[in-house]
């Protein structure tokens, strides 16, 4: 079997997306939730590489991926800061114990 690189990257992106989604659904720890978000973002980057390769516009794809990496790191930083604050106020990182808001 000889899969072209585009297919490998594209399928890889979709599978990584599935893994990240699974993580979001089962994970209870706030920091691990951020790990799952990071995996999802990696899937998006991989999808852009596949798309750029397929269209032979790797320069364009690269510039977009670079911006995604930066934006995503900023989001991860803010999410981790939130997690640290949650730990301070709730005494736990368990998402299921964040139950102040219902209804």
């Amino acid at each position, binding site marked *: 079997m000889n899969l072209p690189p585009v297919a490998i990257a594209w399928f890889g992106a979709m599978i990584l997306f599935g893994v990240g989604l699974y993580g979001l659904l089962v994970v209870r720890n706030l920091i691990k939730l951020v790990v799952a978000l990071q995996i999802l973002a990696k899937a*998006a980057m991989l999808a852009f590489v596949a798309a750029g390769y397929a269209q032979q516009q790797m320069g364009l794809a690269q510039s977009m991926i670079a911006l995604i990496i930066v934006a995503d790191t900023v989001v991860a930083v803010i999410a981790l800061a939130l997690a640290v604050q949650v730990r301070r106020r709730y005494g736990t990182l368990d998402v299921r114990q964040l139950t*102040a*808001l219902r209804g």
Partner: protein
Amino acid sequence: MVVHPFLWLILIPLASAPLVYLAGRLGGSAVARGLALLALLLTGAPLIITAQDLISQATLTVALGMVQLKFDGLSLLLAVVALGLGACASVFSIPYMAGELGEEKYYAALLGMIGFIIGLGCAADLFNLWVWFEAMAVSSYMLVAFYRDQPASLEAGVKYLVQSAVGSVLVLLGIAAVFGETGRLTLNHTTTATTGLLAAGALMTVGFGVKAALVPLHTWLPDAHAQAPSGISAMLSGVVIEAGLIALLRAISPVLGEDSTARFGQLLLLFAVLNMTLGNVLALKQTQVKRMLAFSSLGHVGYMVLGFGAAAYTGQLAAAQGSMFHLLTHGLMKGLAFLSAGALLYALYVANGTHGPLTVQDLNGASQRYPLVALTLSVAVLGLAGLPPLAGFMSKWQIFVGGVQADDPLLVVLVVFAALNSVLSLAYYAPLVNALYRRVPSEAVQHGKAVSWAMMAPLVILSALVVVLGVWPALVDGLSGPAARALLAGWQ
């Protein structure tokens, strides 16, 4: 490069955001407040110039490298709402946020958010649109969780951040699919529909739909809108979810082929039904004022999506114009409602040094101590319910008329359904007004503090606008008409 005036519209808020922060650190929060207000005031000038330029030209374009910024009717509408409501929220926040730790960061992030929203309206490139969208989200995370020593507000922040981040990844996958299929990123070009583009459309609908609070992607909204500081609640409900909706409607254009526009319209109509039903039914159950208003936002997104859906489904301009008008009036009314509720929350709780949710019972007899705030809150919620002399009636009416004009049985049924929903919404708005005008004041009202003039001023301005637009809706035809035309032009 020629710097067109409309660039200043984006540059001034964005450039002043770090300045406000620095000024606040060096010179104290009073300097930060003053500078933030000055920046918003200055941004008004390019807005007026751009609006005048737009009379003679349909779009103003600036290109930087291969990416363009296009300022059209829709950008103008979004800029007017973002800047107008942003200015009101900032003035309101001066007494409301006074003495909070990190005030300068509050104003800096708020300015940044306004700038990003205006920029989002101008994006003419799919990826550029995402960058604006993500920047808007990043600037709002801290604002939602601003009361970082309150567990409830942290929880709202976590929910908001996680769901927004997932939405943003879905949008990215959608963009990657469009890029991989067509090799182009520009908005407004025609394509033939393929399964890849269909998947891209679905991904972007879900991704932007999280921010636009399309049911069932709305679960973050009531928490975030209720827990944020009141000025931010007004911005989130009045502008940010609408910006998400506009982003969706714009981003979907490169995906829509000749026949798929109608199918996308049907999908929007489905979301409209879900949003109206769930928003209004859940709002009925709420006892906290801000939570109720947050749920009512879901219903109002439903009305807007109904108009846009009808426009996509039949190509009717009138329905889209009605939705644009509703976007404007909802921004005014919901902003006014959140700010009025915030004024009462401040007077009854925050000024007394206590933190508590403002419940409907707390409002009992508020009109006796706070006649003006009670009046503005009544104007806001009655406008939202769609009572005749107010703006909400006129904008809903335009959507309904636009829907019926298309002469499609499905749309007629949906319009009747929406009208019934509008009547149903009175069931939770009316008790609110009723409570305000009760004879016996609640305990909270008896111990309430005074509301300062800086809080009243934006309330008076917004309620005057709600009344004026209700009596004279043609006043903003020049705003909603070009906006609807700009949107539909992208779908051709």
